[in-house]
């Protein structure tokens, strides 16, 4: 990371704001890296010979005669197989006490994949969690976030999904991770003996917030190395994207940009899309799958961050505490995996789509019955049966502690249908009913 000896050193900064410095300099390229008073920064604006730098670590204490050195290159990451098992900060520098990684230096945040060179995702990622595998099946090359309130156990669920999914590499991009959560991930991965296939880029709450902006690009540059060069199946975990977006709004605010909805920059959609669209299935077999976390404020999904995210990602997963069974479940109403249609009933058993939809529809009937009950109305026999069904559905399928294969999930579904309903109430295509309805 040290600049070359013969580089020109500037020592006169004309403007300093909370996050930026402006100085006169020549021959500078857009988005180039620079060192201001020993702090990394990046070129964000050039007007004639006036160059504006965004200082990642903040400008506190930078004097107007500070030394400024330009690197003549955008931010880069050195990629090689040696990345595996290592922990890095947002700049790609090791934080685990190990040596610097040697390898090919690649600019981060590189160009997009040509859409005609993508392959349609078609490989299922089994997690054993029925709330995901049955109702919201994940596919390699997909991008999907957990929409969760800060108090929900999303980091635990995500770590569990990561370890159960059969990925060649797991890359953690931690943004504003508390030190406790960082250590949690580290421990879980270590205990699972999976450390050799894990790479982490971590910005904790102790680090300057603007540094976070580099984390997803670092993680995805490493992911592209393993997916493209090594044809590996890479799973990228990004937590928490809300804190990433907050950092974007801090920068745009300090650059005097006009904010759009919820004080977010007008480019939020494109900024997020650039990250999430790195999820891809390559024809050669390599793939990048992104599972992210977007924390919500009081479950509000109309806020600009979850809202824009929802339009970009291929579905979203909601966690909810089901008080009837006292466990956390994957909410079947609000969760959605858009790519599930590519695998369910094709890579899984033929009855998968209908069992899935019917169970959710019956669960909705139970929700209506519950409303009735709460409003003090009498329940019909059907309502009562729907409620009984819902409790068992929640317990045996939706709860996140379930760990069974998909055929077993489907069989469980049919058992629950037959226990609580007759065939007409279930309303599934007759040929499937004839084949799978359990005989007593």
């Amino acid at each position: 990371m040290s600049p070359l000896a013969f580089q020109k050193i500037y020592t006169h900064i004309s403007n300093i704001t909370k996050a930026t410095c402006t100085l006169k300099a020549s021959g500078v390229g857009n988005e180039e890296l620079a060192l201001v008073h020993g702090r990394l920064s990046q070129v964000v604006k050039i007007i004639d010979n006036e160059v504006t730098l965004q200082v990642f670590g903040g400008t506190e204490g930078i004097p107007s005669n500070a030394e400024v050195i330009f690197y003549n290159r955008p931010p880069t990451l050195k990629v090689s197989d040696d990345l595996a098992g290592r922990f890095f900060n947002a700049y790609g520098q090791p934080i685990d006490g190990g040596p610097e990684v040697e390898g090919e230096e690649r600019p981060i945040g590189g160009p997009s994949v040509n859409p005609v060179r993508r392959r349609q995702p078609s490989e299922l990622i089994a997690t054993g969690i029925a709330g995901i595998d049955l109702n919201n099946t994940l596919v390699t090359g997909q991008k999907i976030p957990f929409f969760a309130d800060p108090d929900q156990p999303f980091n635990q669920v995500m770590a569990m999904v990561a370890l159960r999914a059969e990925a060649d590499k797991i890359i953690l991009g931690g943004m504003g991770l508390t030190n406790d959560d960082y250590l949690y991930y580290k421990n879980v991965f270590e205990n699972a003996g999976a450390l050799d296939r894990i790479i982490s880029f971590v910005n904790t709450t102790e680090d300057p917030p603007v540094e976070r902006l580099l984390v997803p690009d670092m993680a995805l540059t490493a992911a592209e190395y393993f997916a493209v060069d090594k044809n590996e199946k890479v799973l990228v975990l990004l937590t928490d994207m809300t804190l990433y977006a907050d950092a974007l709004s801090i920068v745009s605010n300090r650059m005097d940009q006009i904010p759009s909805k919820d004080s977010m920059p007008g480019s939020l959609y494109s900024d997020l899309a650039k990250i999430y669209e790195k999820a891809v299935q390559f024809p050669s077999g390599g793939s990048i799958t992104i599972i992210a976390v977007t924390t919500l404020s009081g479950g509000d999904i109309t806020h600009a961050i979850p809202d824009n995210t929802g339009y970009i990602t291929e579905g979203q997963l909601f966690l909810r505490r089901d008080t009837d069974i006292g466990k956390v479940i994957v909410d079947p109403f609000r969760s959605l995996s858009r790519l599930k249609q590519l695998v369910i009933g094709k890579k899984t058993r033929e009855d998968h789509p209908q069992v899935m939809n019917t169970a959710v529809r019956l669960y909705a009937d139970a929700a209506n019955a519950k409303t009735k009950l709460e409003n003090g109305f009498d329940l019909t026999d059907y309502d009562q049966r729907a409620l009984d069904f819902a409790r068992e559905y929640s317990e045996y399928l939706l709860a996140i502690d379930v760990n069974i294969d998909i055929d077993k999930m489907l069989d469980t579904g049919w058992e629950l249908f037959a226990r609580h309903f007759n065939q007409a109430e279930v309303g599934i295509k007759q040929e499937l009913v004839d084949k799978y309805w359990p005989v007593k």
Partner: protein
Amino acid sequence: MIMNNTKKTTGKVSGIIANLVIVQVEGPVAQNEICYISHDGTDLMAEVIKIIGNKAYTQVFESTRGLKIGSPAIFEGHMLEATLGPGILSSVYDGLMHDLHEMTGIFLKPGEYTRALDPEKIWDFKPLAKGGDQVIAADWLGEVIENSIPHRIMVPFVFEGRYTIKSIVPRGLHKIYDTIAVLTDESGKDHPVTMVQYWPVKQAIKAYKEKPRPFKLFQTGVRTMDTLNPMAEGGTGFIPGPFGSGKTVLQHALSRQAEADIVIVAACGERANEVVELFVEFPQLEDPRTGRKLIERTTIIANTSNMPVAAREASVYTAMTIAEYYRSMGLKILLLADSTSRWAQALREMSNRMEELPGPDAFPMDLPAIISNFYSRAGYVYLNNNQTGSITFIGTVSPAGGNLKEPVTESTKKVARAFYALSQQRADSKRYPAIDPIESYSKYLEYPEVQESLRNTIADDWVDKVMLVKNIMIRGREASEQINILGDDSVPLDYHLTFWKSEVIDSIILQQDAFDKIDFNTPMTRQKYMLDKVINIYETNFDFDSFEDVNPYFKRIINQLKQMNYSEFQSEQFKHFENELYKIIEERKLKK
């Protein structure tokens, strides 16, 4: 055309703010002129969006990473143009009409601009006009067969005034840049014409005689649209809905099933995997009307959300220009744009960088005008030779937070005549397509000419039946609200019947399984048959003693009707379920 500078204007970069690049120019430049900025041996395409003194503000259609002050720029003397000629069908273009299949490597490289049409491909040209004929812009000179569709070679749209055909080549094999005719203008000057012409995408092609009001049904095979809120050929519609409400599935269904000669899909700032779905499925799927593969009648403009934002803005115009080109050949075009909100956001990002005073939600002030101007380019037209052509345009809108009171939705609502509101509530309860039957509307249903066409092509009383069904849905919703407020046993039994009869219509007509091989597409004859069936049930008087029997009974009716929807029309299986249905109805039919 607009600027015929013999010498190209040049300039040097003097400012860079993300993809807004300021160029100090030496010479004249035009608003919206295209320029190329040289960076490390590649030329980055840009468009002039503001001129102040000798500074041209350009939006670069690529990443500007590494670009330096002083880099040279060359101005091309024309606006952003589409290349129009044989070979557009089945292609996949980026927003600037570069062929994505022609690009090398897995990743897009900034400045790699590929040609839109294959200059070496041989076409069998057949003249349609002869020497001595008087012609004007858009008149047909000849045709080639492109994927079994007659592709007319026309007098270029930019030709003003009358021309005489001096010569035209006889039937034979030609490449697109071969001269196929020479036209003489009124001053006696000769103009050679090839099979290729260029048109600035932001201007409408108006080389037609007349644009009447849309007057006939545009079939989509989606029941809740065709039956309840029909689209008209040459009409405009839009589909707003929160994420996860099924916009994309619906658009894909339309692109597969709609009765159009040509389908143009502008994937504008949306997910790349959704576009991949089209690439993968369309070469496999058959067009039920012609038996040919769907990809043969389709062109995809793919400017996905991670591709450069400025090109996203251009992509919808490129798509519309291609549609207008094919319409001038007397063809029926369906243009789909997913999503127009992403297009509006691209406008917002640029307006923001130019530090313009913002309008509502930081969108540019002229957003409503831009949207209405774009929608107005659709339509049914009579060409100069009295043939007809049409562009039916359906755009999706992705309202922020699912709130329909945001600028893009509101501006679109003012211009689009059909409104297909996707409801979160319906989507949550898996009632797909989640088009709300009460909120949605089609103004075309009120057009006397559309009504008459429906009467003539479907049934005399069709429009009355549709209106009846809409009423049933409203009364069903009212009944359901009453039941929820007052409780099952505190409302008259009739309320339950009204609600369940509307549920029959909802389940059988409105809901449709886009992933079932039979149910996904319903021809009009079948829609009429099923509508008659459910109206018949609605008009039947049933005998019930207790409200508790109503729910299970109607569930049985719905189940039989659903099985009918899943069966081949009028097959043994279909008739079996129909017979079962008849028996169920007879059980409780009130004997007079």
